[in-house]
């Protein structure tokens, strides 16, 4: 068993691929540098992240795969809850480089299919952020939203929000991963809230920190949400299926 240790970044993963081809040794296991090695193994190689190597691998992949497939690779990297995803990505990229023609449509291949599944989950989660983000207008006219996405998908949604809400200041914050994006009417920047006492970290604004008319619009929206349902057709199962309970925490209409 060959083990590569690296820094668990996407750049590092691409460097692993470069070094594997350079040394003609391909890993069976990828590990973080700090984690414990297994009892038995044939060799350990420590890979140091190198932007130029990573760049070359990515350029090589661009020749082999379509832009969609490349997005699939980089977006799947953001998935959480798949400890083996780096090895999976490694195998797919390895196959893609070796194969004479593109492998991205070969869903008979277990790795390609698995990767497309993970990508699908990431895409769905991105869509959920776009669907279920609820802005609250704060006293300083910034529209604030808290979210707890399952995968680390906030970066994939920023273009959408920047495009759509171009004329309002907004802040979307990932409560689990403790970072977010702030738009100041000109550009978007990544931020982390350091002040532990701020009401923002509760996710739901209180009366002091919200704008004057915010409470009214929340009330209007909740009223509308109740009124629009047809009682004769109540279907709690479908309701929860399409809007899973884990998102209710910050949904205005579910407060």
């Amino acid at each position, binding site marked *: 068993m060959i083990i590569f240790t690296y820094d668990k970044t996407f750049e590092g993963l691409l460097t692993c691929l470069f070094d594997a081809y350079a040394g003609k040794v391909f890993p069976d296991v990828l590990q973080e540098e700090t984690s414990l090695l297994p009892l038995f193994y044939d060799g350990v190689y420590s890979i140091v992240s190198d932007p130029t190597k990573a760049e070359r691998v990515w350029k090589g992949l661009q020749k082999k795969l379509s832009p969609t497939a490349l997005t699939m690779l980089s977006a799947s990297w953001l998935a959480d809850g798949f400890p083996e995803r780096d090895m999976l990505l490694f195998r797919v990229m390895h196959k893609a480089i070796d194969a004479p023609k593109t492998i991205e449509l070969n869903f008979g291949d277990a790795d390609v299919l698995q990767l497309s599944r993970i990508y699908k989950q990431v895409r769905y989660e991105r869509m959920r952020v776009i669907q*279920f983000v609820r802005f609250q207008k704060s006293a300083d006219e910034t529209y604030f939203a808290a979210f707890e996405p399952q995968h680390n998908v906030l970066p994939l949604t920023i273009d959408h929000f920047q495009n759509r809400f171009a004329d309002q200041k907004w802040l979307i914050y990932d409560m689990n991963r403790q970072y977010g994006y702030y738009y100041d009417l000109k550009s978007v920047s990544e931020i982390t809230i350091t002040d532990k006492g701020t009401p923002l970290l509760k996710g739901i604004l209180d009366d002091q920190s919200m704008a004057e008319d915010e409470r009214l*619009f929340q009330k209007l929206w909740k009223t509308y949400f109740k009124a629009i349902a047809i009682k004769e057709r109540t279907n709690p199962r479908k309701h929860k299926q399409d809007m899973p309970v884990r998102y209710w925490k910050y949904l205005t209409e579910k407060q």
Partner: protein
Amino acid sequence: MTDDVLNKLKILAESAKYDVSCSSSGTVRRNTNGGLGNTVGGIGICHSFAEDGRCISLLKIMLTNNCMYDCAYCINRRSNDIPRATLSVSELVTLTIEFYRRNYIEGLFLSSGVLRNPDYTMERMVKVAKDLRGQYFNGYIHLKSIPGASRELVTEAGLYADRLSVNIEIPNEQSLKLLAPEKSFDSIFQPMKFIHQGILENGEERKKFHGAPRFVPAGQSTQMIVGATPETDQDILYLSSALYKRPTMRRVYYSGYVAVNSYDTRLPALQQPPLVRENRLYQADWLMRFYQFKVEEIVNDAFPNLDLDVDPKLSWALRHPEFFPVDINRADYEMLLRVPGIGVKSAKLIVMSRQYGALTSFQLKKIGVVMKKAQYFITCRELPIMSIQELKPEIVKNLLLTPKHKKGIFNQPELPFDPI
């Protein structure tokens, strides 16, 4: 904006909720420099889901629920004693924009009762759309065209709205006359024709002048009520199919009749809306739009109503065993689409993947084919399992309808012990 609006919003949302259309799809509208909103990639976004499981994409609301008509199936009919309200144009504009800014909605779906006369009502609806666009709002706007509104107003509405719709409601002229004496097929199909012609003319114009304004870019839709009148599924689906022949008709919605006016004896007294039938109609609609089925294959004179037990595609397959089993590795895309258990996505995946090598049933399952259904209708290089040719269609139907025994204690064989 006061609590008064809150009350009006409640009344008018409750009046609007029986309209099922919700989609915000079919067009791309970019955000103009620094404005608010856009309509993305031609797909709609559902922002919330109501307790009845229906999606909330647009702020679906009525301008007013005062109405001069007395249609038997409608909650807002003149003779009903319900609270009435009217929202002003500026209130509607503020509500839409403020909801949109908070990411509650994708846009506005405005409909209305008929106040004074069709043109008076239509004019105010157009004003709402115009004012929204005037405030650089690029979200989705769906306007209901009032039956009997003049061509000029429909044309103006089309310049601001992404979608226009006129509801047919009752798929048969005699039934319509019975339930809605003030309406006629003519007053419904006339505006539909205006919209259709407007879109086609606009298409020609935009070929000549690239900057010409767009007219109803997301096309039109309509709705039919199911179960309020004695029409068969054949009547309904033939009408839908005829409507879909016009390329500007994007969606026909089916609305299971909710007995809102149970006192009216012209209507059936339903305890529950016909939800299964409604679902089967949507499935049949999908077969026509995405699965290349012709309407006469789904329903015909010998088979005027859809089977409520099984979906229309399976029902077709059971009536036509001669087409099966289908060889997954050879059959063309059109035939793959007809296999129960294979959807559009899996059919596409199969066509793409089989050029790398023959597919096995294990891979089919992984790809997402519902093997529970598909197994009776396909072969793939392995030894065929029992197909519909060996079994009879009735047996296949029974096999698919009876639920498998749950695993566990109930499934263990019983050992007969004789008491000593």
